[in-house]
């Protein structure tokens, strides 16, 4: 698959924004990618229905993060705050999109965040979202976790931002998903970034076959990756590998027999680079 045909596989990019610094970084990455792949960018801001409900409760108090002070809130108040956030995000998106001259839309929906995001992802080819939202911790946020597991399309989970020029690590196990993962390398990496292919195979013979298989594809794309053979892979290995190689993007096939859902989630939690989950 050539790079031009690759471009055609990504027509729409969905980016989830909640006005947190991480989501704004995701917006920046999404804009750059959309410009590179000539795709349409869809920004989505979900007004959390749970938050609206909470504000309606008689004992709804908000604790200010900076000062720790208590503050009574109500639905109108919360809705106003959400509207303001949405407008702010939209303005930012407009500025970024205009500077790169891409097609873009922005929509505000109300509901359960993961549900709304998954619904929106149905019409996208690539979903981009921050690893954590407003919580800002090091573990995968609840929203991201649901999207990671259930997303209908390829998704890019960002630590904060992406260094496209850093090495790309891709895991290949010979499966159909694995091949998609190989194809995605070209989609996401810049032309001169080093590529490391992790061949997952039980024995050397199989590994040789897989390498040949992968190589034939990379030769077509005029890429010259390095290979490493592993018999099995767990999340700690992957996280260490990314750290040691100074990895910018880790490309993982989903629905692969070699990579369980749990491994993927743990890898996301432990690694410090962006992760592209290929479907």
């Amino acid at each position: 698959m050539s790079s031009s045909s690759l471009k055609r596989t990504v027509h729409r990019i969905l980016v989830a924004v909640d006005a947190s610094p991480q989501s704004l970084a995701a917006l920046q990455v999404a804009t750059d990618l959309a410009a590179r792949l000539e795709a349409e960018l869809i920004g989505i801001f979900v007004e959390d229905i749970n938050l609206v409900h909470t504000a309606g409760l008689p004992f709804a108090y908000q604790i200010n993060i900076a000062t720790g002070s208590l503050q009574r809130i109500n639905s109108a108040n919360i809705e106003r705050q959400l509207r303001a956030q949405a407008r702010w995000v939209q303005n930012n998106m407009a500025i970024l999109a205009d500077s790169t001259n891409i097609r873009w839309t922005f929509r505000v929906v109300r509901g359960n965040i993961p549900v709304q995001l998954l619904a929106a992802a149905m019409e996208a080819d690539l979903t981009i979202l921050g690893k954590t939202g407003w919580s800002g911790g090091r573990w995968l946020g609840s929203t991201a976790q649901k999207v990671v597991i259930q997303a209908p399309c390829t998704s890019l989970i960002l630590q904060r931002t992406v260094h496209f020029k850093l090495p790309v690590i891709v895991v290949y196990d010979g499966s159909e998903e694995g091949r998609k993962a190989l194809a995605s390398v070209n989609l996401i990496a810049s032309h001169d970034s080093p590529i490391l292919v992790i061949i997952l195979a039980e024995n050397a013979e199989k590994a040789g076959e897989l390498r040949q298989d992968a190589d034939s594809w990379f030769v077509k794309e005029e890429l010259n990756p390095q290979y490493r053979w592993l018999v099995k892979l767990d999340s700690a290995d992957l996280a260490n590998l990314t750290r040691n190689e100074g990895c910018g993007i880790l490309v993982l096939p989903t629905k692969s027999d070699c990579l369980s859902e749990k491994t993927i989630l743990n890898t996301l939690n432990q690694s410090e680079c962006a992760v592209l989950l290929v479907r």
Partner: protein
Amino acid sequence: MEKVTRQDVGVSPLHPDQLYTHINLSSFDFETTDELSDLEEIIGQKRAVEAVRFGIGIEKAGYNIFALGPNGSGKKALVTQFFEKQAKNDPIPWDWCYVHNFEQDHRPKAISLPPGMGNQFRMDMDQLVEEVRSALSTAFESDEYRARRRVIEEEFQERQEKSLEDIQQKAKENSLTMMRTPSGVVFAPVRDGEVMAPEEFQKLPSEEQEELQKKVEELQQKLQIVLQSVPAWQRELRERVRELNQEITTFAVGGLLEELRNKYEPYPAIIDYLQAIEKDIVENAQDFLKTEDMPGGDNPESQLAMFMARMRQGQAPMRRYQVNVLIDNHDLEGAPVVFEDHPTFQNLIGRTEHLAQMGALLTDFSLIKPGALHRANGGYLILDAREVLLQPYAWEGLKRSLNSRQIKIESIGQMLSVISTVSLEPEPIPLNVKIALLGDRLLYYLLSSLDPDFDELFKVQADFEEDMQRNNDNLKDYARLIATLVRRESLKPFHRSAVSRIIEHTSRLVSDSEKISIRMRDVSDLLREADYWAGERDSQIVEIEDIQKTIDAQIYRSDRLRQRYQENILRKTILIDTEGGKVGQANGLSVIQMGNFAFAIPSRITSRVRMGKGDVVNIEREVELSGPIHSKGVLILSGFLGARYSKDKPLSLSASLVFEQSYSGVEGDSASSAELYALLSAIAEVPISQSLAVTGSVNQHGFIQAIGGVNEKIEGFFDICKSRGLTGDQGVLIPASNIKNLMLRKDVIDAVESGNFHIYPIEHVDQGIEILTGMTAGEPDSDANYPEGTLNEIVQSHLTELAEKSARFGKNEKESKA
């Protein structure tokens, strides 16, 4: 009436030899100045030389030198020569540096080091900064540092997350969830994984509602406690990172500073300074690192804050480790000798400059600039007294430094509170300097009488002569001096005749045939100009004609006004008679000084007499055009007249005296003899010869006294007579005591030699009046009566007549009144 001829009078006109004292060329045993050796010693300034030697030799406070004398007398050259000679044998003073004071920013510290080491120290410090930067960069980029730092940050992060997770866990246990709002956190009850809608909540039994509410409040309180602890945790994090940074820094820079400590061990001030630097580097290690290496360095807000903080400090962070080498003496070969030609307060004492940064004027120790006192410290400083006094506060600043024996840099703006900006108080530097002030005598005596500090600070008075004796030894030395100047200025060699003419001219400059001028400026100018004129006529040697041409050209350039005066006299706009006789009218001579050029013109002095009360009216004085000395001269005339001719009767005349056509003031008493002659002529009604002009002051006994400008006066009258054609009768009466001052122009001497012009040396009024009137003056007998027919007898009888008439007139008046 007893008539006399000029030959009968006991006064003979002067012989041409008496009018100009030539130098005997045989006293010069050289052909041109090329044959003469250089004159190393100073001539004619024995007193000044002794004084300067003494001033240099004595090393006590206050023995500074004031060289006093007229401009061009070689004060600066002499003082510089002696200072430089002594300075070569003096030790080279130490360098001075200013460095940052880490305890008090505004009081930079002064450090002194052996000559040349100041710069070495500066370079060492520059290198230290570079090395510290690289050592720290390496240390802070090391894996060890990163790992230790990450551990600290991790610990903090974990503590924060743990607290939040605990609360989240607690919430989960109580069927609650914690959610972010756009500006805070809320807790809400959960049913089946979804937040309970308000309607759903309302349906709950009230106990359950209360229970939920209570749980929410508990969690809120817990969260509040956590959030309130966060700032303290962050402080703790910063403190621990700082401690780590300091530990790493101390380790990284310790070795570098130790090297410097060993090198500068003999200098305790530097050891103290290095100690302070080490402490400062450890406390401010982040200044050495690139912004991205700094804790929080990737945060643009913190970068801006740091930039603003530096702006407020007024310095780039590394500047404070620099060394400002104020004085670097490495290229001296002895003590410094400094001449400051623009001695403003700041040029003397030094100054602190300012840099404009974001609209504010900031300064630091590196902007301290030295003054002349710094540069001359440990050596010699020469200043022009007048220049120092003309510059605001310079004199006060100089005195303060000399009194306190230290240089304290202050800003005048600050001193007067006219400028309010960041300023410094640099540590004063000890002052050990010998100062020579150059000035004219008036300044010296004014300072001495008006400034109480002056005599304390300038105890050595070096008084410069303007002339010296014209004897054989001095002439030879003078010729060598000319040769030295000729060589120094790269001029053509001077022939001995030219040299002698120059020396003769200097005698004329001081108006004394027995003296030579030692005002070197005049001589140097003459040499340069004569060299030019010799070049104009393509001669390789400067001859006597070039000297004459130089003198003539100098006069011609200056004598426009003299020509205008003479022109007015010749055109009879100014009335001066040069022949015939007039009653009550004499030719006086007045000198006009125009800058360096002096000339004289004849002035008509007239007198009228009538009966009166014995007063001589000085008309100039009545209209306040007479100076005090002139007025005094006229009053002396009354004394002379009364005592000589009217001892036993009242002086019953009223006489008036006036300088005709004088429209500016008259000063000096040199015309008093002329006034007396005019007065006697008026009383006796005997005409005075107008072919003669008169100069000389007179005392109450009728003796003629010396006056100034005798050469100019004779030449002034000669020029008018010559223009009208010399008759052979013309001449000038001068005081006999002025003969030694005669150095007349050649054309005057020629005229005298050919008998066309005469110069009479007069000792007493009687000699003068005889020449002027052609009458015998007459000697008084024992009754104070004069022989009949003599001029004095006529004067006496006319005065007696007036007295008698007056007495009669008085008597008639009384009778008519009675």
